[in-house]
């Protein structure tokens, strides 16, 4: 997947799952401060990435994800590792 494809997937996930307006989901948007997610939302997101994209995510990796771009980069990196 390209960066644009992953970003589109992330935007779709946030709009459908958390009902966040698509225009708010910018790469630099902070998941908690700008998008209003909480710790349960974060767990939900990790569960989604693991089950839907078949990614294995370690506890310490979760703490590095703060922005939408972090989510995109993370998916790209983990997908490349898996390939």
């Amino acid at each position, binding site marked *: 997947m390209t960066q644009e494809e992953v970003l589109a997937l992330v935007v779709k996930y946030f709009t*459908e799952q958390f009902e966040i307006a698509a225009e708010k989901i910018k790469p630099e948007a902070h998941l908690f401060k700008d998008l209003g997610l909480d710790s349960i939302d974060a767990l*939900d997101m*990790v569960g989604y990435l693991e089950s839907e994209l078949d990614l294995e995510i370690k506890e310490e990796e979760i703490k590095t994800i703060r922005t939408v771009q972090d989510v995109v980069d993370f998916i790209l990196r983990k997908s490349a590792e898996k390939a």
Partner: protein
Amino acid sequence: MMTDWFRPARPLDAALTAEPRFSVASDSLFFDGHFPGRPIVPGIALLGMVRETARRSLAGVPLPLAFRRVRFRALIEGEATLVTRLTATTAAAGTEGSPAGPAADAPAAGFPFEVRWGDQLAADGLLVQAPCGAVKLPPFGPDAVEESRSIEDFLPHRGRMRVAASILRVQPGLCEVEAEALPSWPLAFATGADSVVLLELLAQTAAAMTGWEERHTPGGGGRGFLVGSRFFTSSSAEVPFGTLCRSTVHSLRHRDNYRVFQGLVSAPDGTLLAEGELQAFRA
């Protein structure tokens, strides 16, 4: 009577800013089985208060039948006084086409709510108009079991707070239970119960499944507590007494002790009564 469950501490009025106060007394029927030896105010008590606030204060507006982005943020043990706050807004509609999004003909408005317990936020979320139809369940497989043991072997709920009557079919990650709406159900009115109780039925279906898994799946199961509901929608405001309900829940995903379930409640003829997504932590 609804007042056997919780009581408005002062008369509710039509002003949305009135912030009605409700008390759950130590002899509240919520504590009849939720849970034996450890009285905990259930989540549906808080949502019932929100619905009651809406029922009294939203004159001229159809009672919103859906909840979205509900979070239960406090474990309330024993008697408590809770304050509800419901706010009218036109900016609270869901994303068109999202799983719990509003119907095309529904008003583009929602009502953010909070339930406060002292200085703590006990629950919050959004009350909206939204249709059923988002949940799609997988079929049962050949390994599904028709469980003949009592549901109380798998479920901690007792007394009047146990609304699920028996397990019909179960397999890891998927469970179907049956129930009949009775005057003894929580949040009962004269002819039926507040449909919020169907959220409790879904939660008990999930709990029965995890209790069953605990016995049958290595590393599976475990008792949990509800921390939220991304969406819950019922097709009517009340479930008439005598309604036979089939509640089916499947495990959507999990991460560590966190687990997400989706489920639906239908009548024997297939009529959809309610659906929802539950978020729970394993204790």
